[in-house]
């Protein structure tokens, strides 16, 4: 495997294909780096979740590993006080407008936010930022799945699935700032839009925003 290059992550030497982004190099080798918005096939990653920061030897500032291409002899650290602080802040901001009623969520115990919290010793609770959980009407118009925007983390995985995998183009981001959300043209319910209900977006959702109705939990159970 002469065309592979060697990098060091947390003291472990690994061989990776050149051109790969650091995040995927780490994940492929069993080294966890938190991430929500990263998509392997994406040429220009959004880097919008701000969770995948790492320290690279020789670089002054932490960098997002989803945008950094691996280089020969790169020395990477996935944890440091700076990284932990950045990730904690980003995580707290994400959950500050997230519906945290995990016991009512169909993705409970199968949720990327819970994974990140566990891996990095973070709590699914925060006091630093004002909590703004917006009220949304549940869109349960599709036959087998539903969309609860109060659980959406705006990672864009569903939009990628809709555009690139399903090639439909039914959903997209709208509005700005705290009002930003994933919705259809004219805010129509999914069933009234051009959505084909292929459910690829449901499979892509890392949290419980898009979920199969069969997995729904009754409130309080």
């Amino acid at each position, binding site marked *: 495997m002469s065309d592979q290059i060697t990098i060091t992550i947390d003291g472990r030497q690994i061989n990776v294909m050149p051109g790969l982004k650091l995040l995927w190099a780490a994940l492929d080798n069993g080294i966890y780096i938190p991430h929500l918005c990263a998509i392997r096939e994406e040429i220009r990653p959004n880097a919008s979740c701000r969770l995948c920061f790492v320290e690279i030897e020789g670089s002054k500032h932490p960098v997002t590993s989803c945008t950094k291409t691996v280089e020969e002899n790169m020395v990477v650290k996935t944890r440091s006080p700076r990284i932990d602080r950045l990730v904690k802040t980003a995580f707290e901001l994400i959950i500050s407008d997230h519906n945290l009623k995990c016991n009512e969520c169909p993705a409970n115990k199968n949720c990327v936010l819970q994974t990140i919290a566990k891996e990095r010793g973070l709590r699914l609770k925060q006091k630093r930022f004002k909590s703004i959980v917006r009220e949304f009407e549940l869109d349960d118009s599709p036959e087998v799945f539903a969309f609860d925007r109060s659980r959406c983390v705006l990672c864009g995985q569903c939009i990628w699935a809709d555009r690139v995998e399903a090639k439909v183009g039914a959903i997209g981001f709208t*509005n700005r700032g705290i009002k930003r959300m994933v919705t259809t043209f004219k*805010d129509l319910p999914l069933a009234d839009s051009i959505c084909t209900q292929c459910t690829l977006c449901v499979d892509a959702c890392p949290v419980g925003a898009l979920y199969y109705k069969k997995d729904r939990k009754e409130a309080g159970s």
Partner: protein
Amino acid sequence: MQLVEGEKEVIIACVNEVLKEKEKTTENLIPILQNVQARLGYLPSLAMEMIAADLAVPAADVFGLATFYNQFRLSPPGKHQVKVCLGTACYMVGGKIALESFERRMEIREGETSVDRLYSLERVACVGCCTMAPVVVVDEVVEGKVTPTRVDGIMLALQENGDTKKSEMKTDLPDEGEGKNK
């Protein structure tokens, strides 16, 4: 927002004209939307759909862009346009209360237009006369120190003024609704 009689043809003609002038690249999406809005006063959903189809981008993307920028409006300007100032001074002395009073009286939300197209309600950031805060601009007329009681007065004046013109407005073409899950 329902289209008024004959509006559909106007929109189609206008959008086709703009699309003919501009090169069909996604870079031109914002200029095209600006151009259409300059001619029609707003971006009807029909126009957005036509533009999306022409540039081969999802309509959801055009909608996302139009809702991202404040310069685009998705509802037609009303016969009476009310702009509530929420600049720092007006905000501090209760501009939001004035805005909410208008929302209740007009039965619309900020940024929307009433179904009969008599009123549209917007928020602006500083009109330039902060001593009169909270300020409301009603059809280019600046109203100062606007309390909820004054809102009632303004609405009453507009209604007397507007009732005579209400009969001119006719709507047809159903199912151009704004959508339900807001």
